[in-house]
């Protein structure tokens, strides 16, 4: 396993958090698909000092992804339809993981399978990789090939994946869910009952944009995942609902976080940690800035740790 994290301290604030049994130097992670494999921004952020790197989702075989255009900017956010392009688990273990281990980063490996069995094979393959601190199951990618591969759209399907993965995984398992469901709490309960050690809320929201000049969709895949500050209120609502229903279950809040106060919003409603996604595209030092601003915020409200924040939340206006 990686070396012990160096605590990130500002004034009397200790940003360290324990996420599903893994100690992180800060509660601010780089979100899957938005932080590459860590090496891309190694010149801008100090990887051992960031909360963790959630990798791009890895599948059993390499995936080519969708045609272009894959991206369209939207108000306070963007749509993407990358289509889970990745080099496959063997190339990941050979070429990407050693860099992350060497750099001393906390590694959350995101995995994607077409079936529950594929997820289980991936978990087994990664169980021997000491550099992987946690697994994130991408049960909710809106750019999956078929809707039934959005396992998190159905409590039973999502629970089946988690149960099969848990038989093989050696690392704690986080289930990444989607807000594009009628009853998110039911899905969250199902995956926790199946053994998930924590939750990641939320994935991008399924969206669409049209170019009225060409009268065509802006994305080659027609639909894509909406991210950025535009979705933050949805994400905060989801964390709040699930934290209320499942107290004590670790939650990584994600959706449109660009500042320390954005992160604090998620911690107040019950998240243990947060993942910063699209903001990394705009601000290459976003992870360090969000963590620094969060520390400054905690100091300003005279709290010493992120964990103390949730207890101070007042549920009425």
């Amino acid at each position, binding site marked *: 396993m990686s070396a012990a994290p160096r605590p990130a301290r500002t004034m009397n604030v200790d940003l360290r958090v324990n996420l599903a049994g893994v100690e992180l130097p800060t509660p601010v992670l780089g979100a899957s698909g938005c932080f590459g494999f860590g090496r891309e921004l190694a010149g801008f952020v100090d990887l051992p000092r960031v909360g963790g790197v959630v990798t791009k989702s890895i599948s059993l075989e390499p995936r080519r992804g969708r045609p272009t255009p894959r991206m369209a900017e939207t108000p306070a956010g963007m749509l993407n339809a990358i289509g889970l392009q990745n080099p496959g688990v063997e190339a990941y273990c050979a070429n990407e993981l050693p860099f992350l281990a060497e750099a001393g980063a906390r590694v959350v490996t995101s995995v994607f399978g077409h079936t529950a069995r594929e997820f289980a094979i991936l978990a087994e393959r990664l169980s021997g990789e000491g550099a992987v601190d946690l697994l994130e199951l991408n049960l909710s990618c809106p750019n999956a090939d078929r809707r039934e591969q959005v396992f998190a759209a159905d409590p039973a399907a999502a629970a089946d994946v988690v149960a099969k993965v848990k038989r093989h995984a050696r690392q704690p398992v986080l289930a990444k869910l989607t807000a594009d469901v009628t009853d998110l709490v039911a899905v969250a309960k199902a995956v926790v009952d199946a053994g998930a050690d924590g939750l990641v809320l939320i994935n991008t929201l399924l969206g669409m944009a049209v170019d009225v000049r060409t009268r065509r969709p802006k994305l080659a895949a027609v639909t894509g995942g909406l991210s950025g500050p535009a979705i933050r209120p949805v994400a905060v609502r989801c964390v709040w609902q699930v934290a209320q229903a499942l107290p004590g279950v670790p939650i990584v809040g994600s959706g449109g976080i660009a500042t320390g106060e954005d992160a604090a919003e998620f911690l107040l409603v019950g998240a243990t940690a947060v993942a910063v996604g699209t903001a990394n595209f705009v601000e290459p030092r976003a992870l360090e800035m969000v963590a*620094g601003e969060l520390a400054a915020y905690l100091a300003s409200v005279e709290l010493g740790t992120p964990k103390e924040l949730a207890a101070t939340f007042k549920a009425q206006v």
Partner: protein
Amino acid sequence: MSRPEEPGAAGLPPPAPARAGARPAAVQELARVFAIKRVGAYHALSLVSPAIAKLARPGQFVEVRTGHPSSFMLRRPFSIHSIQRGGPGVGSVEIAFEVVGPGTAQLAEVRPHDQVDLVGPLGVPFGLPEKSANCLLVGGGYGTAPLFFLAEELRARRCRVDFVVGAATEGRLFKAMDAKRLAQTLAITTDDGSAGTRGLVTDVLLDVLARTRAERVYACGPMPMLAVVSRVAAATRVPCEVAVEERMACGTGLCWSCVIPVYPPAAEQARGAAGRRFDPSARTPTRMARTCVDGPVFDGDAVAWRELGYEAVRVHEGGQLAMELLP
């Protein structure tokens, strides 16, 4: 455009030179606007950015933050048009752009002394010849902009530089007269014939290649133009590099939006060894490469133009050129 300094309470340093990483060095720099001026249909923006000016090489680009921080607009990528390195601690970077949307519209509003947040230099630069060589630079529209930086570097290496520039109209040519000063010869084409030869740069390419005895071709402009230039260069066995443009979100390799299909190096070698290197019917598996970190400069024959929808170019005996574009 001015972006306030980040809160200092968190113990964070101001934007600073990047630490050694796996990628070539890039930095974030708050740059003062030195000058902004209209150049025909385009804007040329000069920014005081010594760190980026020091590191930049021709073909690389910068990512510019536009809009108010609260608007959360993505950065916009612009290739580097020219560099003034100046004395110690002084240096500037010039970019050229056309107003096409809200980001470029806001960028066109900056005034001298405003601050602009830059990340760069990013991407793979043009490869420069080891020895003096005859270099033909082919630019379309504001795609001509990065070729000026390249021309300066080539001339410093005692290379012969010739330019072919084209655009829809005379007003959409980018600094054609300045190109003339940098080049041995300049050929101009416009779609409407308002300047130079009526037609496309690719119409005059074979003639110019022969006349200038070009040993290297460098091109930047619209993708259909780059497809033809690459094919013509390949057919005439002149090494060719192209700087491509694909929609980007980050510019730093994170998001995988800006991909194009390329032949992997091993497959390229196999194709070359089989003597079918330029056979457009070859069904070599391609991979999707990020134009921001694997490009924007690619070897012309590494790009899978056919997959991008550009059919073969055929050079007939007698020098006639024919190309079919898929619908």
